[in-house]
């Protein structure tokens, strides 16, 4: 019995049972639906085994939206619990699990895949390539992320969720203070997803370095591609740190090693140190592609080229390097000497300079432009002042003497949500609307989209600006309750209303998608927004081979030149196109990773060894496999081009 006890449902409450039933019903409905409509083979051959960067990107997008829902529900529960003083909605253990899950899901399983979705869909199109450098590895990346996310998500029904915060500081996260398997899930699920992310980074660096269209020098690349490139660089140097930190954490929990233990020389702050050596660059991994998306949207809807292209690029490269110099500001209060704190204070503040350059360049891009208020542009416009507030509060936090007062308070919570929501969340929502026709071939409804935008922006302001005030009034973060006498009640209630607004906005976004699937006209043409960069030079949705003929580039905005300056983008005749084959191995291997991870979480060593052997067999299979890919014939290309309603010749 003792053995099975650790698999038990952590919080046997009606809500958990209801969600378990909901999961079972949903799974059953999906299985039934797939069987009834005979879609199993379609699902397998078109999606699960795909190596097409656009389909992988789409799957990232769907997974990210699902995780946004999960993380959003967590957020709503937290705000509901703290809406009034001495609330009894959640107990403290449950609240701790909810905010830990919220943080991990939003950063690792929502924001990251959302960014990956755009990198996958947009980058090869923007540089005029047929796919990424390693299509098969790309599928592995996606499925590893997906299995990591699934492993993390089953934690709340089998065995228990992580409850030590998304930062999972030791010794709190060690067996003594977190005895449930929750933190094992944390360590292993993030590890699996992290390996996938590392692969993505390698893939995109190689793609961008070697697969650009002829004539596209580095300094002619579109801004989003630049941001994806810089992000990939940060990924490949930051994620190995996380790999090691998680490995050490896992070993401390599973094998009783002493890295972060309280005895035998263990050093708890080393975890915090390694976590933030990864964690701070991680912030830039998220924010730079978001900057890239805004840098595509703002010029398009201002009908102007981006202002200060060179300084935009330089500032991103500088940020990529600088992001590795500042991690100590996450624990200024650890007791280092004043001079160490001063060093990291200054390096942190210096990052504001390149970021400021970008803000002003966006403003100057709009200046003298012709601004159209579409949904993506509204998000971009709202981003500028809101992100500026987030940025300047960041400078305030960077001053370590004052940080002693902000640290661990709601002020900090307000700051990083103020950076991440207008920065990353606005960007991915704007990007979704902007690239929706590119992915699916129809536009999202603008009217509903604008309502969603206003609810989100106002909801965000209501939810997070009061936190600056409660933070300065001494409310620590991660408190599941507070007393009436503290006086935090009113402002927390305002936050709750803001969160409710944001929830409404999410519902509206889902409704836009539903409404547009039903009612939006199809066949929007290749260029519905009158855009400027190469991804719009092909059809919507994009054919398998991306471009019938690889474009030739001789400026920063070749597509704009082709539209308005009679520049000839596609020269030559159709030739047969070489494409990679689909494969089921990435999915199978990642599924084995899932089993392996699950076995480790519960210390089931035999299962772990068996699944590990399975993983190695998959790798060996890849080594021995002979895969030459396949060709798309000229006739087939002609047929597709005619069907897509355009002929670029």
């Amino acid at each position, binding site marked *: 019995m003792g053995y099975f006890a650790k698999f038990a449902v952590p919080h046997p409450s009606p809500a958990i049972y209801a969600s378990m039933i909901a999961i079972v019903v949903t799974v059953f409905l999906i299985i039934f639906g797939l069987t009834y409509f005979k879609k199993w083979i379609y699902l397998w051959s078109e999606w699960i085994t795909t190596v097409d960067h656009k389909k992988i990107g789409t799957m990232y997008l769907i997974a990210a939206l699902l995780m946004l829902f999960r993380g959003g529900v967590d957020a709503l529960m937290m705000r509901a619990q703290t809406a009034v003083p001495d609330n009894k909605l959640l107990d403290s253990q449950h609240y701790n699990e909810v905010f830990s899950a919220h943080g991990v899901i939003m950063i690792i399983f929502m924001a990251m895949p959302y960014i990956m979705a755009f990198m996958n869909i947009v980058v090869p199109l923007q540089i005029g390539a047929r796919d990424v450098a390693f299509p098969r590895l790309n599928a592995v990346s996606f499925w590893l992320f997906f299995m990591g996310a699934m492993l993390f998500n089953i934690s709340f029904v089998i065995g228990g969720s992580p409850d030590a915060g998304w930062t999972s500081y030791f010794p709190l996260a060690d067996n003594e203070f977190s005895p449930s398997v929750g933190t094992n899930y944390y360590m292993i699920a993030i590890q699996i997803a992290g390996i996938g992310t590392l692969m993505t980074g390698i893939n995109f660096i190689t793609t961008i370095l070697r697969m650009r269209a002829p004539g596209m020098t580095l300094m002619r690349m579109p801004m989003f591609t630049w941001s994806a490139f810089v992000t990939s660089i940060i990924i490949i140097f930051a994620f190995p*740190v996380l790999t090691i930190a998680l490995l050490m954490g896992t070993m401390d929990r599973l094998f009783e090693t002493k890295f972060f233990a309280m005895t035998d*020389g263990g050093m708890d702050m080393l975890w915090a140190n390694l976590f933030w050596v990864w964690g701070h660059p991680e912030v830039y991994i998220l924010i730079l592609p978001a900057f890239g998306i805004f840098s595509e949207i703002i010029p398009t809807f201002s009908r102007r080229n981006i202002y200060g292209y060179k300084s935009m690029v330089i500032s991103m490269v500088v940020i990529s390097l600088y992001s590795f110099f500042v991690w100590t500001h996450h624990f200024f209060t650890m007791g280092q000497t004043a001079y160490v704190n001063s060093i990291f204070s200054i390096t942190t503040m210096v990052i504001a300079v390149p970021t400021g350059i970008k803000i002003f360049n966006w403003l100057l891009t709009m200046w003298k432009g012709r601004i159209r208020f579409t949904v993506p542009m509204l998000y971009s416009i709202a981003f500028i002042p809101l992100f500026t507030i987030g940025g300047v509060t960041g400078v305030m936090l960077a001053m370590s003497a004052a940080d002693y007062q902000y640290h661990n308070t709601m002020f900090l919570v307000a700051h990083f949500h103020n950076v991440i929501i207008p920065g990353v969340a606005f960007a991915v929502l704007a990007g979704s609307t902007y690239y929706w026709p590119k992915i699916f071939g129809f536009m999202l409804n603008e009217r509903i989209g604008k309502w969603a935008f206003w609810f989100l922006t106002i909801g965000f302001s209501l939810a997070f600006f009061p936190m600056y005030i409660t933070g300065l009034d001494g409310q620590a973060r991660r408190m599941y309750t507070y007393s009436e006498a503290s006086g935090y009640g009113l402002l927390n209630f305002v936050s709750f209303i803001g969160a409710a607004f944001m929830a409404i906005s999410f519902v509206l976004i889902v409704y836009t998608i539903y409404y547009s699937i039903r009612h939006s006209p199809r066949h929007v043409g290749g260029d519905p927004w009158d855009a400027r960069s190469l991804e719009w030079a092909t059809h919507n949705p994009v054919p398998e081979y991306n471009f019938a003929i690889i474009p030739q580039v001789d400026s920063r905005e070749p597509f704009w030149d082709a539209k308005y300056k009679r520049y000839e983008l596609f020269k030559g005749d159709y030739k047969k196109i070489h494409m990679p084959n689909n494969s089921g191995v990435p999915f199978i291997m990642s599924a084995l990773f899932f089993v392996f991870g699950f076995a480790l979480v519960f210390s089931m060593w035999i299962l772990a060894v068996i699944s590990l052997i399975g993983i190695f067999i998959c790798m060996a299979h890849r080594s021995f496999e002979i895969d030459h890919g396949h060709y798309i014939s000229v006739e087939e290309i002609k047929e597709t081009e005619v069907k897509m309603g355009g002929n670029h010749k």
Partner: protein
Amino acid sequence: MKVDHSQPLEYSTEQNRLNILGFWVFLGAEIMLFGTLFTSYFTLVDRTGDGPTGAEIFEIFPVLMETFLLLTSSFVIGLGIHAMRLGKKKAMLTFFVITLLLGLGFLGFEIDEFMVYYHEGATLQTSAFTSMLFTTLGTHGAHVTLGFFWGLFIIIQVAKRGITPATANKSFIFSLYWHFLDVVWIFIFTFIYLEGMTRV
């Protein structure tokens, strides 16, 4: 698939060149991986608790043997790649087999070394220092083990399929990996063993 005959076989197709560049980028990530291990090692090196220090358990002979075996294997696989470029399949295979045997010898010494530490009371759980030592050495050792099997697969492929653009590419990438493990070992040898043994 276009084959460019002016280049060595391993660079002769676009996909081959992508593979090699991609692998270099991966090695960049590996540098950071081992960099993090070293970071943690240097931080924890003096935190020995009640357990032994490095100076108390390290012995020069097995470490020198391990270093010599790995350095030589790195040299031999370099010869293997050279033979591959000359198109001499048999010589290449011989060099590759010798490389893997030297790698096995390295692993043998390392496992023996771990056993000795274990008997001297330095286990994975003894102190933060020993945890870190075993993890750092173990990560490198796991890389070598993985490399052994990978190399084995490549030998089988070259033996069966001959030196083709595909097998040449795989062999070359494997050689990069093997050399890289040698580079990591140099740092382990210098900054863990020698530094530990000369520490007062």
